[in-house]
């Protein structure tokens, strides 16, 4: 089943070049719809709230046994929710390109489908090298999409995107390989702790070469010293922080977003950025919880820089697409901040943020793409007051902006508030107030939350500035369109679009709008679904927290803590 989620888009991509040019889009749409149906069946058809939910779906086959490589796919509610997001955006990306892309359609849809397969693979991979392969492979289709189908500066943007993220992930690969080496050479399978671990879950491979995610995580989190974890985490951070992106390694994003075709931007904002946060959440923190804890204040600071700095930068943009692109940096700042709170509210909020940002920002890019198709400009100096011309579009635009700004009742609020609450709770300041019941302790705290909270104001400033220019105000349209204003862009080769949205375009936006509303009002099913994955992350960090203090008496420690400490000392 999980394999099918990857294979369906891949097979469709293989069929696409054979299809007649006219029906390429329909074939691609059909393929993505089938994948969506399967993902929906898997997501909705079972209860994901149990700790072992989804285990029966796991797929495992030997790949390169001499290297310990296994083709292992697995899932839990958390991964599945992101797979579902990817599958949902699939048909939307295809359908939004029918009129936007008219040249070299086979290549276009083919790579789009490959991209979907690769992204799905990232979320399902349970072997580190497999994960890395999928992770890196997303770069290729994206590179093609930007460099062939982007706007004026597309080549530069594509190269920049590729090399920037590639360089980062090479360093991450070093971290992964080191972790595997550590497991093979520094972990003794005969160690009582290791034996206890294997006894608890027989699938674990300790003391031998493997890239199995669970095994490496068990080995590294238990046996690696905090200092080593700090370095390994840094290596992984290099790969994932570029993808998120965190300040100061974010500068590839505005350019890539601006130059990418609409579907590219949607995928980029919707899913590709989430590969970074997902990597941090599922790989890095589980592998090096102590390292993650040590890094939390720094990352918190970078998030604040992103939230406030990138937010303010949004406010002075004149290119509407760039504005939304920079807003992703600010939004992902919230997401990562919640993640590094390491408590329920924060991590839940962070996971929800991944989904919600994908929906609302993806939709905003769709809306802007529809404008670009009609006016061939993204400059707020040239277009304005479009509510007068395109009331349906304006309604959607206002709706998704409000979702993005975090208006309660829509999806953005739930995640943003939980991220902030998590950061607020995660302060050691609460430990000194004995009457406080809701603090969890951690490396962030109320001041961090307060500064991040200004991001709510800044978001209102730049998003309403955008609405005020593009949607409201006196109508402004580019001059050359004066005689064709009813039909938008007047380029001969392209099909003419009516002034307001077509039924197809409404069909593209409406599902996202419905989901934004539903997840804002009734997020309970999604929250239950991702809860086990969230608890797993928190448990990993809690484990590191309770293990670390060396002065802790042996009698008080839990079964594995004291011996693990001894091993850590030995490793030094």
């Amino acid at each position, binding site marked *: 089943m999980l394999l099918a989620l990857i294979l369906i888009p891949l097979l469709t991509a293989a069929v696409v070049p054979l299809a007649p040019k006219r029906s390429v889009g329909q074939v691609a749409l059909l393929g993505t719809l089938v994948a969506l149906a399967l993902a929906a069946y898997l997501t909705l058809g079972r209860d994901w709230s149990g700790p072992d939910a989804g285990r029966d779906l796991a797929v495992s086959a030997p790949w390169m046994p001499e290297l310990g490589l296994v083709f292992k796919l697995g899932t839990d509610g958390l991964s599945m929710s992101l797979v579902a997001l990817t599958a949902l955006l699939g048909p939307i990306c295809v359908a939004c390109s029918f009129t936007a892309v008219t040249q070299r359609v086979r290549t276009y849809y083919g790579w789009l489908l490959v991209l979907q397969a690769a992204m799905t693979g990232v979320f399902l991979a349970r072997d580190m090298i497999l994960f890395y392969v999928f992770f890196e492979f997303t770069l290729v289709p994206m590179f093609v999409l930007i460099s062939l189908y982007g706007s004026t*500066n*597309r*080549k*530069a943007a594509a190269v*920049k995107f590729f*090399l*920037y993220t590639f360089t*980062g992930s090479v*360093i991450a690969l070093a971290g992964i390989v080191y972790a595997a080496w550590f497991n093979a050479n520094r972990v003794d399978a005969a160690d009582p702790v290791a034996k206890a671990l294997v006894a608890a879950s027989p699938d674990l491979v300790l003391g031998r070469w493997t890239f199995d995610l669970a095994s490496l995580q068990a080995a590294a989190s238990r046996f690696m010293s905090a200092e080593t974890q*700090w370095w390994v985490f*840094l290596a992984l*951070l290099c790969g994932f922080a*570029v993808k998120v992106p965190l300040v*100061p*390694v974010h*500068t590839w994003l505005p350019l890539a977003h601006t130059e990418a075709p609409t579907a590219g931007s949607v995928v980029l904002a919707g899913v590709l950025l989430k590969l970074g946060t997902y990597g941090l959440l599922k790989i890095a923190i589980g592998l090096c919880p102590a390292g993650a804890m040590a*890094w939390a*204040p*720094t990352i918190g600071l970078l998030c604040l820089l992103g939230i406030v*700095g990138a937010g*303010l*930068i949004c406010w*002075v943009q004149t290119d509407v697409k760039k504005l939304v692109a920079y807003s992703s940096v600010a939004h992902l700042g919230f997401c990562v901040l919640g993640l590094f709170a390491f*408590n*329920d*509210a924060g991590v*839940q909020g962070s996971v929800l943020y991944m989904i919600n940002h994908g929906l609302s920002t993806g939709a905003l890019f769709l809306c802007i793409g529809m404008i670009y198709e009609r006016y061939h400009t993204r400059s707020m100096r040239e277009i304005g*007051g479009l509510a007068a011309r395109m*009331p349906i579009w304006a309604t959607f635009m206002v709706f998704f902006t*409000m979702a993005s700004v975090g208006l*309660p009742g829509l999806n953005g*609020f739930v995640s943003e*508030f*939980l991220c902030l*609450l998590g950061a*607020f709770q995660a302060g050691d300041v*609460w430990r000194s*107030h004995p009457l*406080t*019941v809701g*603090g969890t302790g951690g490396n962030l705290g*109320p001041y961090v939350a*307060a500064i991040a*909270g*200004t991001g*709510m*104001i800044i978001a209102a400033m730049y998003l*309403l500035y955008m*609405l*005020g220019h593009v*949607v*409201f*105000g*006196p*109508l402004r349209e580019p001059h050359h369109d004066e005689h064709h204003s009813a039909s938008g862009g007047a380029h001969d080769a392209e099909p003419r679009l009516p002034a307001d949205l077509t039924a197809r375009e409404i069909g593209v936006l409406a599902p996202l709008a419905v989901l934004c509303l539903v997840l804002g*009002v*009734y997020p*309970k099913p999604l*929250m239950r679904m991702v809860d086990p994955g969230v*608890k797993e992350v928190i448990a990993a960090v809690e484990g590191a927290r309770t293990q670390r203090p060396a002065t802790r008496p042996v009698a008080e420690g839990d079964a594995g803590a004291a011996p693990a400490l001894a091993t850590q000392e030995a490793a030094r």
Partner: protein
Amino acid sequence: MTHLLSHLASVALAASPPAEGAARAAAPVLGRVVEGPWTAVLIPGLPLLAAVLVALCAAGRVRSKLPAWITVGCLAGAFAAAVQTYLAVVHQPGLAQGVRVLEWIHLSWGEKPGQSFAADFGLYLDSLTMLWMLFVTGLATLIALYASEYMAHDLGAGYNRFYFAFALFVFSMSCLVMGDNLILLYLGWEGVGLCSYLLIGYFYKKPSAVAAAKKAFIMNRIGDLGLALGIMLTFVQFGSVRYAEIFEAAAPYLTLAGEGRIGEIPLLIQLIPVLFTVGAFGKSAQLPLYVWLPDAMEGPTPVSALIHAATMVTAGVYLVARFLPLYQCSTWALPIVAWTGAGTALLAATIGMAQFDIKRIMAYSTVSQLGYMFAGLGVLTSAGAAYHVFTHAFFKATLFLGCGAVMHGFAGQLDLRKLSGVAFMKGWGIVGLAMLVGCLNLAGFPFTAGFFSKDMILAEAFASPTYQALGWVLLFTAGLTAYYTFRVFFRVFIGPKFYEPGDELHAHDDHGHGHGGAHGHGDGHGHAPAKAKATADAAHDFHPHAPGWAINVVMVLLTVGSILAAYPYLISWVPGLIDASSARVIEVAHGGEHAHGTFFGYDPHAVMYYVSAIVGAVGIIFAFVLHFVGRTGAATAKADALLPVFGPLARWAQNKWYVDEFYNFLVRVPLLVISHVLHLADKLLVDGLVDLAGFMPQAAGRGLRRQQTGALNGYAFGMVLGVGVIAAIGAVLLW
């Protein structure tokens, strides 16, 4: 007359003021919730249904008044449900009732208190809730009816949009007031903000309307941040965001406060209400966040009446009243509320005196009256504050709708120098009469509802030994209020008949835009006869159209409501409701003799009626002499001769004390500069270093190979740089 006054006063006194220590109802049981009537769900439910139906109308491109009738019908149903729920609630005084609707956000990470987070769509019904919902749904119904005629020029998409936001507003307001937890309150809080944004920006082609809408939303967001942080602190301290559980957890602190040992309450608990206050000041337009409300008058007048006068802006007052137990646990929160309120009341009144746009005058008077309400809360007469909210809702809605009728009938004319004697024109009698009643209320004329409610606040201020000075500020402001209120009435509604249509009729650039918001650039003397003649020519074809049945019916009902709003005072209705809710003022035990403030040795509760009646009358007389006696045209009045006496003060007040400019200079411009610097730094330093190291973006069409080799160095360099920065920060923080 005097006899009647003292008789009425004694009746009222015997019945009411709680501070007198007269018999009070039993204290409410906070922290316990019993099952409430399901019909309460209809109060938010029906407006939501209306919003959905109107949205369907919009999708179906309905071009009739159907959305109006849907909304009016649903809101009337909500009002009926509110009455029914009210009866159920007062049936069990002092006991809050709860209705659970839908699970919303649930998290749990342990069994202990504070280890779970639960925010549901649930209702918390007590007498405070129902007091608010009665006037919210009642007024919303009437104003929706009024708007059916007022907005008729925009039938179609605009009409549908208007009623959608209108119905959504009432739904949001119900969530705000009826929610059983802080998160749902926050939903309503931001929801009303959204509707306010949409409705202020209703005329979205007008740049000033768009700017005003944006300003309102952002100003509110600043307050919302305070509220959000307060909510988080509440959760961290009390382990819950549900009212009942918060009150239960806070009970020990309240006991401490009641015993006069407020100093022993942890500072973090004392900080919660201060953070709430920031939110309240944003939503209720108090210093320093009030500047959005006058600009909000860009919206259609029914919106100004409902949202920006009667209901939404009182949300801050509701928040403080709801959490009065926490406020009473804080040393600073209530003084902050009291003094900010009084300061805002005075400042807004001075600005209101110098404006020429009658709708803006009403807006400033709303800001000023909200200041009274906060001052009332601050001096601990939550009953007085709540009653002032109640009476103000009626008379201010009347005043706004009256102004709206004028605006509607005279093509958008709002300048009081261009209208005169409107009440004597054919078909305008009802509006004129309604305006008279509204003005009397606002000016605090004896026996009006506004008089009684303002009195409760004034008397309590003087009765409190620490707030004597605040009492004087409020009393002085009462005089100013009477003056500027009747300045409008004497100039626009009576006197010689004269009118000049507004700029909705023709391109008449004299009014409205283009003067940086400074209406009245010429103080009235710029209108030479020649110009008056020219405009008279332009207005030659214009005939004001008198209000139709919907507007007149609503005006009559509201006028009657404004008059009858005085009756609850006589039966102490509001104090009874407040005492049975969380807004009840607890009695603080004093170590020694209970200090009691006096007014020149008299009991303030006994003499304030006379004092404020005299102050109000003086204000009205001033307005009469300066703006009515001997006035022959619309443009000028005797008051103009007085202007030199005040020197630059009058001009400064006209320009709103330059607060907007001050904010712009102090906050917006520096922030803009910082943003541009950041953007530049982002482009040049972070990104530019990368590009500098070998990236040739313009070589797009040429060989990829050269480009890649060149760029790889650049990006590797950039990556190393970025990673180095991260590592450096990490190292600094870690060691």
